[in-house]
């Protein structure tokens, strides 16, 4: 009871800080988009050829990966953090004789210019990706691209935070050996105990759970921290990391890898030779096919669930914000102002919902991973 109270207190403190950041970020968010819309309106008044505010593009741009980290735009001036571009080309003769290229994304001037025979494509095939250009300036294909994109930079930021938090907690734990926990340790120990007792021990079992604990804890906190950071739209936060399918794919592949490596005899027997009537296995190995597809489906579902949930959360928030500009461009500035309290209220509501979803998705991913490990290590039941 006493422990819970302290935990709640620390949680409330954290929540307060979080809410302040949230409020700040919404203030930040609105003029940013408004500028975007105004720009279009003024252009529209002048030329009448420019399209009105494109909500779809606005939303997709906000959840997509990018080569630079956009902060704000004022008229034609874009403020963004340039990120390193790392490319390897198989045609070095097109790029001053060098195959390997590292430069900052600011060289592209937000995609407006080419650099060293590379370009951020605007074509339909390679939209948004870096492509190689031949001597005539036409796109010939993608080089090997391991640039530090917005998502990768977001992952780096989250890892810094993750290390900072848990190395502090570990230091506390070492210093407080045999004493009551204190500080950050108080906030995270209950979660760690929850993962150990309610997830690992329940799903894997008393005997085997210990060797999966580091992986499950890393997985849970990596997802949780990234989920939360995605909700704070100020760099270095706000990159849509867990809503990026490549990230969730790697996480799911790690779970798949650990499951496969730790699978015991019983696990493989259940897949290749399950206890079913013989005609389900011979001459057509129906059950093995079903079981094997299950092995593939499990990580696939993990990947899609986390990705879709986080992406959808981000999209809905952005959609509610862009409502202001849709109304502005459709019915004038007054309508935009009128609708803004409603959209801000909805955005806040969805963001708060996303806080819940962040917890739930991290929990579900970890729980399901633990269940798969439990299946892989269970003996006859």
């Amino acid at each position, binding site marked *: 009871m006493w422990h819970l109270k302290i935990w709640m207190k620390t949680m409330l403190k954290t929540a307060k800080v979080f809410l302040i950041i949230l409020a700040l970020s919404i203030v930040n968010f609105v003029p940013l988009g408004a500028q975007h819309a105004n720009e279009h309106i003024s252009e529209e008044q002048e030329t009448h050829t420019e399209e009105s505010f494109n909500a779809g593009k606005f939303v*997709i741009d906000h*959840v*997509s*990966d*990018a080569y630079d980290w956009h902060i704000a735009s004022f008229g034609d001036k874009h403020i963004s953090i340039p990120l390193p571009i*790392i490319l390897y080309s198989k045609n070095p003769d097109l790029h001053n004789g060098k195959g390997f290229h590292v430069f900052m994304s600011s060289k592209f001037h937000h995609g407006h210019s080419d650099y060293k025979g590379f370009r951020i494509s605007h074509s339909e095939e390679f*939209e*948004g*990706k870096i492509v190689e250009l031949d001597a005539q300036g036409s796109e010939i294909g993608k080089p*090997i*691209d*391991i*640039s*530090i*994109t917005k*998502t*990768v930079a977001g*992952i*780096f930021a989250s*890892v810094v935070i*993750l*290390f900072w938090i*848990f*190395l502090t*907690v*570990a230091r506390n*734990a*070492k210093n*407080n*050996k*045999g004493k009551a926990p204190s500080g950050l340790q108080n906030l995270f*120990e209950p979660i*760690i*105990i929850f993962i*150990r007792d309610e997830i690992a021990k329940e799903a894997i079992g008393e005997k085997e759970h*210990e060797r999966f*604990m*580091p*992986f499950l*804890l*890393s997985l849970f*906190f*990596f997802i949780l921290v990234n989920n939360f950071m995605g909700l704070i739209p100020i760099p270095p936060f706000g990159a849509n990391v867990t809503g*990026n*399918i*490549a*990230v969730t*794919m*790697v*996480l799911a592949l*790690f779970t798949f890898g650990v499951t496969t490596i730790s699978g015991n005899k019983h696990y493989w027997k259940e897949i290749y030779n399950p206890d079913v009537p013989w005609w389900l296995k011979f001459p057509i190995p129906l059950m093995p096919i079903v079981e094997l597809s299950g092995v593939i489906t499990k990580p696939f579902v993990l990947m899609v669930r986390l990705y879709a949930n986080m*992406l959808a959360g981000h999209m809905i928030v952005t959609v509610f914000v862009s409502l202001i500009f849709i109304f502005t461009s459709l019915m004038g500035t007054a309508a935009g102002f009128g609708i803004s309290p409603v959209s801000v209220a909805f955005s806040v509501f969805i963001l708060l919902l996303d806080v819940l979803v962040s917890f739930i998705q991290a929990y579900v991913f970890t729980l399901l991973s633990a269940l798969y490990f439990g299946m892989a290590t269970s003996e006859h039941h």
Partner: protein
Amino acid sequence: MGLFIPNPGTIFWMVIIFGIVLFILKKFAWKPILSALKDREESIAKALNSAEQARKEVEGLKEGNEKIIAEARIEKDIIIKEAINIKEKIIDEAKEKARLETEKNIEQARQQIQAEKTAAVNDIKKQVAELSVMIAEKVIKKELGNNGEQEKLVNGLVDDIKLN
């Protein structure tokens, strides 16, 4: 960039970063944290166990104490009883001794009295004899003032001797 197609560059970085995260957190965070948690849980369990044991021990001690007290009480009763017996015996002995002493004293006194009495009687006898002799002397002196009388007495005495 496509939302639904995983970007190989991102996958590349993610594998490296998550691998490093797994390694570093496992080595420098989860190991100390989990071991600290386990240690604390074990020490709490140990403390609770030892408290329980101590409680049981105290209970055992209490029981032992009560037993000892009860035994002591029984012993006390026995001792008191013995003491009473000894007292009575001593009193009895003392009484007996006193009685014997008294009897002895009385006997002695009686013997002494007897001796004294005998002595006194003898003394009286002696005195009476002396007195008698004296009286007889005086009587004889007076009676034997004349010869007839003397003769008569001697005859009488001679007669008496004959009778004896």
